[in-house]
C-alpha cells in the first residue's frame, strides 16, 4: 500500500471518530497533509499511527493514549485549546487555526 493510499485510509477512519467528538480536520491543508504523512511513516515503523508531536516511551499504557486521534484521552486539554496538540483536528467552529496557540497541559490544568 502506498503512503498516499494509507493517508486516505487514516483520513477516512479518523474523520468518523473526531466528528462524534465535535472536531474536524484542520482547514490548513499543508499541515493536514504533513501530519497524516508522518502518521503513516510512524505506522510503518511501529505498526501504530502514533502522535507525531508527543513522546512515545517504553510503557504501553502511556503510548496507547497517544494513538491518533488521541482526543478522548486528553479531552479537557484539547477542548481548552479548541485543537489537538498537533493541530490536525480543531473544534468544528474553527475557521482560522493559526490563531490557536499550543497551550501545555500543565497550564490548562492550572486554569
Amino acid at each position, binding site marked *: 500500500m502506498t503512503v498516499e493510499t494509507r493517508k486516505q485510509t*487514516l483520513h477516512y*477512519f479518523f474523520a*468518523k*471518530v473526531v466528528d*462524534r*467528538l465535535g472536531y474536524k480536520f484542520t482547514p490548513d491543508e499543508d499541515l493536514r497533509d504533513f501530519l497524516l504523512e508522518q502518521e503513516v511513516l510512524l505506522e510503518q515503523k511501529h505498526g*501504530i*499511527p502514533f502522535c507525531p508531536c508527543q513522546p512515545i516511551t517504553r510503557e*504501553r499504557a502511556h503510548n*496507547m493514549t497517544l*494513538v491518533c486521534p488521541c*482526543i*478522548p*484521552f486528553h*479531552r479537557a486539554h484539547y477542548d481548552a485549546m479548541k485543537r489537538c496538540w498537533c493541530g490536525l483536528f480543531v473544534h468544528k467552529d474553527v475557521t482560522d487555526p493559526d490563531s490557536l496557540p499550543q497551550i501545555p497541559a500543565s497550564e490548562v490544568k492550572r486554569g
Partner: protein
Amino acid sequence: MQGGLIVATTEWIPVMDDASLPEGGMQSAYPRGLNVVIARVDGTVYAVSGACAHMGCPLFTGSLAAGILTCPCHDWRFDVRTGEFLDAPEVRLTVYPVRSENGKLFINLG
C-alpha cells in the same frame, strides 16, 4: 400495509446455538456477511459491531472482562451492553438486538 420491506427489516437471523456461548464469553458471527461480536454478560446475550470504531480492527480477537471489550489493536475499551467507548461515550459500536429461541440465538440487523 404489508410490504416486503417491513418483513425484511424485522427479520431475525440465526447465528449460533445458545449453548455454545458460555457466560463471560464472546464469539464472532457473520450474519449476512456483517462482522458482529456476540457476548454473554451476567446471563444476558448482547451483539455489537465486530469492527472497532477506531480503525476497524476485529474486536473478537480482543479480550472481554466484566462486559468490557478491549480492542487488540490500540486497547480502546467498549461496553458490549451499550456499545459505548468508555473514554468518549459519543463514539460507539452499533448494538443489535438478540433473542434466544428453541436453543438458538437470533440477531436482528434492523
